[in-house]
């Protein structure tokens, strides 16, 4: 298995998986929170929040990456503040994870928001009359019933994180072993003579991972939906 990919390629694959996993895991709670707020609350500036969440989907990824660099770079306002606490994003794999998370966030929120909107508020009312406080209503009714959408959103976000290129390379550059994920590695291999073989192998890995993620999300969502739909 490891012989099939060279050490540099293997490094890129492992890094991509690590970056995407952390990006997805860390953004999931925020994604659920934002999706719930957009689905169920009305508050001033809701459309602005909605727009901000969707912005990375519409902006050129380079722009998102550059904005990240400006704010989370070591001299940026957030970056310098976090640096005092020992948290550095710029040119680290954690920065790649941050860029991937932000780029994947709209996809995640959209899927989760749709599934929360599909949960009948009458069921939440019923839970309240049965003595469940709002947090319990959310945990025992809203969340389990929205699970198919949450699963889909999570896997979509993971696949998107695996493929993120523009914002990542702008924000954290293309450092082997630190920020060179699969897309950056493919790009780097294509820049040097004789790199086509390695690039092609990584392309295959990317296609397989993306397909597997989609299939997995489909199977999982269907299984959960059958459970929730209840026979």
């Amino acid at each position, binding site marked *: 298995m490891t012989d099939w990919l060279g050490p540099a390629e293997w490094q890129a694959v492992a890094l991509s998986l690590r970056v995407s996993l952390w990006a997805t895991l860390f953004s999931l709670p925020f994604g659920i929170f934002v999706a719930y707020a957009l689905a169920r609350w009305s508050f001033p500036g809701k459309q602005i929040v909605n727009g901000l969440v969707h912005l990375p989907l519409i902006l050129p990824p380079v722009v998102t990456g550059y904005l990240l660099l400006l704010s989370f770079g070591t001299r940026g306002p957030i970056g310098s503040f976090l640096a005092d606490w020992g948290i550095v994003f710029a040119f680290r794999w954690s920065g790649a994870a941050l860029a991937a998370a932000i780029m994947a966030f709209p996809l995640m929120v959209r899927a989760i928001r749709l599934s929360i909107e599909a949960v009948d508020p009458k*069921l939440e009312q019923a839970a309240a*009359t049965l003595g469940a406080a709002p947090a319990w209503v959310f945990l025992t009714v809203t969340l389990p*019933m929205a699970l198919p959408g949450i699963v889909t959103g999570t896997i979509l976000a993971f696949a998107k994180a695996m493929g993120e290129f523009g914002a990542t390379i702008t924000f954290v550059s293309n450092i082997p072993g630190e920020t060179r994920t699969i897309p950056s590695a493919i790009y780097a291999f294509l820049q040097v003579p004789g790199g086509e073989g390695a690039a092609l192998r990584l392309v295959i890995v990317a296609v397989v991972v993306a397909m597997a993620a989609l299939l997995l999300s489909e199977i999982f969502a269907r299984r959960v939906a059958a*459970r929730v739909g*209840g*026979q």
Partner: protein
Amino acid sequence: MMLEVSLKHRFAGFDLDAQFRAPPGVTVLFGRSGSGKTTIINAVAGLLSPDQGRIAAGDWVLLDTKSGLQLRPHRRRIGYIFQEGRLFPHLSVRQNLGYGAWFAPKDAPREDMGRIVDLLGLGALLDRRPGALSGGEKQRVAIGRALLSAPKLILADEPLAALDEARKAEILPYLERLRDEVNIPILYVSHAASEVARLASSVVAIEAGRVVAQGPAAEVLGDPAILPAGAREAGALITARVVRHHDDGLSELEANGIALFLPRLANVPGTQLRLRIAAHDVILSRNRPEGLSALNILPGLVQDIRAGAGPGAIVAIDTAAGRVLARVTRRSALALGLAPGVGVHAIVKSVSVAPADVGGAAAS
């Protein structure tokens, strides 16, 4: 425990202004669709915040806008049976039943799960999910779920309205047992006169957001000035005792000295029954009719005549057996010379039967 409700709420184009008291037993909020019944019950549950009001069950205050007190729905300890069941589709029947019990205070007096499962006939359904239940089964589970949440008060919002006649007939006996075996006040919303006749200990008649009458069921339903469900659905209640069963398939009943004959009943002689006589099943005659196939003829005096919209009128007759309502045309009321105090014979074509032991208020 007496439930006291006083509410004022303004909607676009609709004002709710209702005060009533609900004694133990089943209190039916009776009125047409859109009269504000569900709004009232939702305010009791805390799902709607009224502009002004006070709701208290005994000394336990749920809402008092004057002192700014408003309990959140989950703190009200109310078992709400919704019209559409509202079972949790992702949980099994067993988990649905246990949901409320899990949140109830640890020291709350609880119904035994096994007893409720038996009472409602849920034993075979426990491991199924709501998606695999029939409408009637779902409603039974919803009733059980409300009961098992250790409620201090039960609310039911037309729990039978979404069901066909067969399913209604399946659930009504369970609701009757509930009323007789579970000792908590039940506030029951309905616009179906037959349900009211079978279940109600007392009735609160609602019209356009206002309480037009409240009191024991027979009193409110027998008042021609109220008719909360409209003249078409009018009907009076009388109480009768089973005397004996005859060989020709009839059962003889006695209502305060008047003999009534009904198709064979299953009840043993001596049982008290509540009979509902629909106004459209009563014919009036000035003279004692002869050569008539009808068996049940109640002599009495006209107490009141109410002309409604259209050609019909409702006549209230005081008989020895109790108040009876008759729906006649205004033309025949005129032709018969009906007026308060005139003696008539009420010829009853058919009667529906409900057990008379109706909750705590039957004695009062």
